[in-house]
């Protein structure tokens, strides 16, 4: 158990600066419980083992560091071509005017505050529950802080096959916004739901999503974290998966001075599968870039499959971190666990730290992990150049090829192409300066 040592000063001053949102008995109780847990854990500090490669200071300090807004100019917003239900948050606050009506065939959607205002509500048994479960064996204080102080969010329940994806758009309009959002997602038996997320959200963004997928349900998640260079984000995805259910998540990150994305997934029903993928492309030239993927997958049932595929392309001092663990509980026989993290370092200033872990308490399992860090393939680069492709273009081609293995983890081919086209465009823009 790696429980963080209490750090009363830091934690208490952060808590003092926040206000516990009011409303609804069960909501208040869950928040009070989370606050109590946060006080015991304390916010993370540099000495915490789980934060060995990522300095949490800017995520825990009282006020959000200022973040300049990024203008994408004539760039069309991501997912614009996708038929979707669009829900907009501006600096972490739901914006009804810019959003579609919260109504979708096969799905129930409400704002968190509205759900909490009702005594009898399905979300009652989910809010904070998966987050709490995800606190062992490793403490995740920023998630407890989120459950306690989240000011907005959605509760989404899929009862059938959702007619189209729900797209959460996070706009950033204030240079000092400090947003705390908490979503609860329930996919009922045999139901299917896709959630898209994009945008920088705020100067500092703490987001938590709890996803419970019942037997034979399917949940897809595709996220792009926005292009603001100076934004900071700490996100948590807590998922609990029933029998024969499927969970698939992909995250694309290109900018951002600080990003920590945590995935905590528990396979609790037999024959479930969980795929988590991420592609990060960091350039430390304009602003620092630090990107941390921390994943914890627990196999607690028979014949489950999990897959982690993370790719990072880093240059000009950009820093990448991957901490990935597969825990196979006693009795979780026939587990198939796979994990790969790879970094392409385009210069000597970029760095990548990887900590892959397997912990297995069953004797009939297949688990593998791998991690590689490498430079660009000079032979391939020369081959492309010898055919007339300039060095920068050739590098971009190889970068896209490297990243593509993570993009292929997205189930929907149209979304795959959307992400590919976007990356190409960004690389071209970067090249032109």
């Amino acid at each position: 158990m790696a429980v963080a040592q209490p750090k009363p000063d830091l934690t208490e001053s952060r808590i003092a600066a926040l206000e516990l949102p009011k409303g609804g008995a069960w909501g208040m109780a869950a928040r009070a419980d989370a606050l109590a847990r946060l006080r015991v854990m304390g916010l993370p500090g540099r000495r915490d083992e789980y934060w060995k490669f990522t300095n949490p200071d800017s995520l825990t300090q009282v006020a959000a560091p200022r973040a300049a807004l990024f203008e994408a100019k004539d760039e069309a917003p991501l997912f614009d071509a996708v038929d979707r239900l669009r829900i907009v948050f501006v600096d972490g606050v739901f914006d009804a005017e810019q959003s579609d009506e919260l109504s979708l065939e096969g799905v129930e959607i409400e704002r968190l505050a509205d759900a909490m205002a009702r005594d009898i509500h399905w979300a009652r048994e989910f809010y904070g529950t998966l987050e709490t479960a995800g606190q062992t064996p490793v403490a995740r204080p920023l998630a407890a802080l989120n459950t306690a102080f989240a000011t907005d969010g959605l509760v989404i329940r899929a009862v059938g096959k959702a007619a189209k994806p729900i797209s959460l758009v996070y706009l950033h309009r204030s240079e000092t916004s400090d947003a705390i959002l908490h979503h609860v997602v329930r996919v009922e038996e045999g139901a299917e739901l896709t959630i898209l997320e994009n945008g920088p959200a705020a100067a500092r963004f703490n987001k938590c999503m709890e996803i419970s997928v019942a037997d034979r349900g399917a949940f897809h998640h595709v996220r792009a974290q926005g292009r603001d260079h100076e934004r900071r984000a700490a996100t948590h995805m807590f998922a609990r998966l029933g029998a024969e259910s499927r969970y698939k998540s992909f995250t694309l990150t290109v900018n951002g001075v600080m990003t920590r994305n945590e995935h905590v997934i528990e396979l609790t029903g037999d024959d479930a599968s969980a795929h988590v993928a991420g592609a990060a492309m960091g350039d430390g030239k304009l602003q620092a870039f630090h990107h941390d993927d921390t994943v914890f997958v627990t196999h607690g049932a028979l014949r489950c499959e999990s897959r982690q595929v993370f790719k990072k392309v880093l240059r000009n001092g950009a820093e990448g971190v991957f901490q990935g663990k597969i825990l196979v509980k006693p009795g979780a026989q026939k587990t198939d666990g796979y994990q790969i993290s790879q970094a392409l370092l385009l210069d000597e200033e970029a760095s990548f730290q990887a900590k892959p872990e397997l912990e297995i308490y069953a004797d009939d399992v297949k688990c593998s992990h791998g991690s590689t860090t490498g430079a660009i393939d000079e032979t391939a680069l020369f081959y492309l150049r010898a055919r007339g492709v300039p060095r920068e273009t050739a590098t971009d081609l190889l970068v896209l090829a490297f990243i593509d293995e993570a993009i292929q983890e997205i189930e929907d081919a149209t979304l795959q192409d959307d992400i590919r086209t976007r990356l190409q465009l960004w690389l071209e823009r970067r090249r032109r300066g």
Partner: protein
Amino acid sequence: MLTIKNLHVKLEDEDKQILKGVDLTVEAGKVHAIMGPNGSGKSTLSYVLSGRDGYEVTDGTATLEGEDLLGMEPEERASAGLFLAFQYPVEIPGVGNMTFLRTAMNAQRKARGEEEVSAGDFLKLVREKAKALKIDAEMLKRPVNVGFSGGEKKRNEILQMAMLEPKMCILDETDSGLDVDAMKLVADGVNALRDAGRGFLVITHYQRLLDHIRPDVVHIMADGRIVKTGGPELALEVEQNGYADILAEVA
């Protein structure tokens, strides 16, 4: 077309001289062959001309239509009209063959101030050229050279050459790893490109490729120099007697 004068080249990291004064002129419309034993510097010559890292030119010049090749980046040499068919074509996972070809074609055109080729025209052209080389649609879709057999890789090199229409083609041991049928196919591809405006430099160990690609001039290279130059009959002499006689003769 290609003029090499007194070219001296050493390895960048080692104090090892590979080329010790190469003089060679390939005229437009002509096919020159370079033969020679292992380690004579044939492949180094092709790499140095195409701009590969790891070599240092210590003396001499190489020009393409009067332009200094050695001062150019590899991509500039390609746009200027130089093409090297690799002895070992490189596999590039994740980059589609078609994407690669089109990117290369358009990059060269752009560098020369020409109009980029449209997607439709490109597709038409690549299908036509691929057909002649018996390269099927499946191969075109696959990542560059990934999972290709030795013969497929070499045919893919010739396809690139046919698409890019260079002025000066260097073929580095294109016959290595080819069976008779594949060699015929590759040779036909090369022969189809022979015209009055294009020069060829064919590097090979063996005479058999030269049965299919008839050279105008044959050079023998040994120990970093061209030691003998003659007509096609020189290749036959090598085939019959090996290099020993020739080397003894010039020593």
